């Protein structure tokens, strides 16, 4: 099992040239106030980039570490059997690792224990520490969520285009009948006229060519507009990857550089090919419209000729031609619509696969978390109970709804939370896309008018931000206090620590570091529960505490005690070793028991009482 073996500080700062050696098992950092105990802990967190349970602890910790280093650097070495890892980090943040990434450590600052207890996010982090592939699961969830969002945005764009297509189709109207009537009228005039068979055939031929041409021109234009939007995306992507390729040059990893450069090159090719396609399309469109102009000129000449043999024939045939053109346009729109609907189906299919994957991953995560909760509850029974409920935290969802409903004229601050509770994000997006007002009315008990306002205002921009919104699981930590269990939020600060510390110590196989765990704790709890938890952990992971309480090193049977000392300018290790080391024993007696005299007086007091 890996443990922290050594912490070394370079020549600068408050702990300049300090070297601290740790052992497996319980290590205790002791020393008067201001001797650098917290600094050592924050330096370890900083070097290992071990993270924190609350943002406050993360920022303050980093500030302190940087201040202590004062331009220098710290090196932390971990060991497991014959394998060792060494991490050096400078106050500028540059980090070098020898022998790969070191094993994880869990580090808590003073007050972080109780503030993590009342932070929903902090409690989730705590539970996630207990199952191995939490980070990997989280990464895959982010990936699936992003795929779902992208597909939803594409669907929203597509729906908008379908809507435009529909209104254009409606505007052109069903023209079959009108065209038939116009053709019949023209035919009647032609039959009565003395126009030659050839001229008649030429007229009809040019009209049907007009229809085919109009259809082709429109199809070309639709393809051009789709291509244009794809080009936009590709150009943006190319720029992004180009930047990436430049910043990758700063890395000294050749394979990465080569791969990114080759991706950039291919995107370059793709944009070139697309722009060539776009030029070809434009040329083809120009050709088609020139051909149409020519055809139009021919048919005008023909019409003039026909008009001379039959009054009104020119007028009638012009109308047929116009209607043929409209029919061509109409047919192109209908074909386009079929194409769009096929793409919509494909996108929906792609999204539902991504959604199913997302649900599965979240389900696996909740099961893992619930298993952790069950194990912890069994281990720490009856004092402590841990529970995890699925998808209970609706804050992100509510926020997404609030920002989508603003400006809709609805009271979003009251409506959004109600809506979030009543309707799941996935079904809401489905209803937004289908304008399914009735479903929303049934599910959320809204009036028809309000429901349709909700769907309309969310439709414009919000579907993608709603669909994969993170609905977090909720962790409840409870302590048996009096007749029943009480959730950690309703407990005193001291009680909160009595819940979190035993849970932390149950985290086996990695180093746990806590700055002054005894803050807010009474000695009775330290002597019974905390010490018992430390002893239970023997052989299952290193513990590093800083402390002012003699009970922790003495009753906890510390393997290693490090006493720090400071003259206010800088700090150093005054003594280090096991409990049987005489200078360690003296330091504990002076520093933690208030000296031999005070200790003797206390002993006499208890003897008198006894």
């Amino acid at each position, binding site marked *: 099992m890996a443990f922290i073996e050594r912490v070394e500080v370079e020549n600068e700062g408050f702990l300049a040239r300090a070297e601290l050696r740790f052992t497996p098992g319980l290590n205790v950092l002791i020393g008067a106030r201001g001797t650098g105990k917290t600094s050592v802990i924050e330096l370890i967190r900083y070097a290992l980039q071990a993270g924190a349970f*609350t943002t406050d602890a993360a920022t303050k910790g980093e500030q302190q570490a940087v201040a202590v280093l004062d331009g220098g650097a710290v090196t932390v070495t971990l060991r497991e059997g014959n394998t060792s890892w060494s991490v050096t980090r400078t106050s500028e943040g540059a980090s070098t690792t020898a022998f790969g990434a070191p094993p994880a450590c869990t580090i808590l600052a003073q007050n972080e224990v109780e*503030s993590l207890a009342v932070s*929903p996010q902090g409690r989730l982090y705590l539970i996630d520490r207990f199952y191995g592939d939490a980070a990997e699961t989280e990464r895959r969830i982010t990936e699936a969520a992003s795929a779902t969002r992208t597909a939803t945005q594409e669907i929203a764009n597509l729906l908008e285009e379908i809507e435009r297509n529909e209104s254009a189709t409606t505007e052109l109207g069903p023209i079959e009948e009108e065209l038939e009537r116009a053709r019949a009228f023209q035919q009647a005039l032609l039959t009565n006229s003395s126009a030659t068979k050839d001229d008649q055939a030429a007229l009809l031929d040019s009209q049907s060519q007009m229809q085919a041409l109009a259809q082709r021109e429109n199809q070309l234009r639709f393809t051009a507009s789709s291509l244009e939007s794809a080009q936009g995306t590709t150009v943006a992507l190319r720029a992004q990857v180009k930047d990436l390729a430049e910043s990758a040059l700063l890395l000294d990893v050749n394979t990465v550089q080569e791969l990114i450069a080759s991706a950039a090159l291919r995107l370059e090719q793709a944009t070139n090919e697309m722009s060539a396609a776009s030029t070809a399309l434009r040329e083809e469109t120009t050709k088609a419209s020139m051909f149409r102009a020519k055809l139009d000129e021919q048919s005008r000449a023909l019409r003039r000729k026909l008009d001379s043999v039959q009054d009104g024939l020119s007028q009638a045939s012009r109308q047929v031609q116009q209607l043929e053109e409209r029919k061509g346009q109409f047919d192109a729109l209908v074909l386009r619509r079929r194409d769009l609907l096929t793409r919509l189906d494909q996108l929906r299919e792609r999204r539902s696969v991504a959604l*199913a994957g997302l649900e599965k991953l979240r389900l696996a995560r909740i099961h893992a978390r619930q298993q952790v909760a069950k194990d912890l509850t069994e281990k720490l029974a009856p004092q402590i109970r841990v529970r995890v409920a699925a998808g209970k935290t609706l804050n992100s969802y509510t926020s997404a709804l609030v920002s989508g409903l603003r400006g*809709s004229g609805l009271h979003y*601050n009251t409506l959004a939370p109600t809506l979030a*509770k009543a*309707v799941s994000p996935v079904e809401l997006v489905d209803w937004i896309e289908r304008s399914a007002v009735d479903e929303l009315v049934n*599910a959320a008990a809204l*009036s028809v008018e309000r429901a349709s306002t909700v769907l309309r205002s969310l439709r414009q921009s919000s579907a993608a931000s709603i669909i994969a919104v993170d609905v977090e699981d909720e962790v409840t930590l409870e302590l048996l206090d009096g007749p029943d269990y009480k959730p950690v939020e309703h407990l005193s600060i001291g009680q909160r620590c009595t819940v979190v510390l035993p849970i932390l110590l149950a985290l086996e196989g990695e180093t746990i570091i806590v700055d002054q765990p005894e803050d807010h704790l009474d000695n009775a709890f330290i002597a019974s529960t905390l010490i018992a938890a430390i002893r239970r952990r023997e052989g299952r992971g290193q513990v590093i505490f800083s402390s002012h309480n003699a009970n922790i090193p003495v009753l906890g049977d510390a393997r290693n005690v490090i006493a720090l000392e400071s003259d206010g300018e800088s700090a150093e290790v005054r003594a280090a070793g096991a409990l049987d080391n005489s200078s360690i024993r003296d330091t504990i007696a002076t520093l933690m028991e208030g000296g031999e005299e005070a200790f003797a007086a206390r002993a006499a007091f208890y003897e008198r009482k006894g």
Partner: protein
Amino acid sequence: MRLVLPSTSGKAKLTQREEALQALSDDSAMRRLRAARALFDVAIAADRAAIAAQLEREEDSWTQRALERVLARLRDGAVFTQSTQADPDENDLEGVQAQALQLATKQVLHEVRPAIQAVESATRLNLGERFAGSATEAALTRLTELLAALQQLGDAAGAPRIQQFDLTESITSLLSTVESGPVTVTVARTDAVLVAGDSALINLALSNLVRNALEASREGDDSVIVNWARREGEAWISVLDNGVGLPEDALSAATEVGTTTKGEQGHFGLGLPISLRAIESLSGRVILAPRKQGGSAAEIRWPQ
């Protein structure tokens, strides 16, 4: 011998209702929810027991609610609607106004910022060494500060991002960045107070109230006290000072941007409007009152 397969037509085709009832025990919460929604239309009285039993087992909160609604419909024959508790005022002018304010400040800042930067660099070039310390530099600095205040006003009108957070942690770290001069700012508690809200908006409101309190104080023996708590359905923060006190109509005047009790060199009279705007975005309110012993008390409250 011929093998006779059972004919598929013999197997009864499931009705939509039967399918939905079956799907209630599906592994996927999405499918269970869809089934529950379908049952709202097709369930019959005989299904009540089965649905109630499923509700007992259901873990997904949306499916639970959907099943409850199915049961309610089966029981009452009709559905309760929200019309009884609909808001008296359907039109949310506040939201519309907030969005307009946000858009307007954004637009103005977008246009004005580069213009001012251009003026500054041109003047710097023209005046050369005389720029530093000139009246022009002072005026430009003040203009930049005004833009920063406008930016805050726009931010205050932003859509809230509701999160659970520790109010104590948030207030303490905000106050550690405030320049308090000779006046001491005291916090009334250090234990964690968990609240729901948008910490950025609350900080924006609070920082302006604290700055007002500090500006009203300015004396060595004056002090500013910040206290907070969460009580039935509401969270509050109060800022107490014993300074010069506020004019009676401070709060109503605050809705008219630009009114200030401070002199030329002070802020822009945007402090209180920013606080008001930020808290209104959370459906909360700001209360200002004089204290008996002098000074004033400013409070922000928002629903939980």
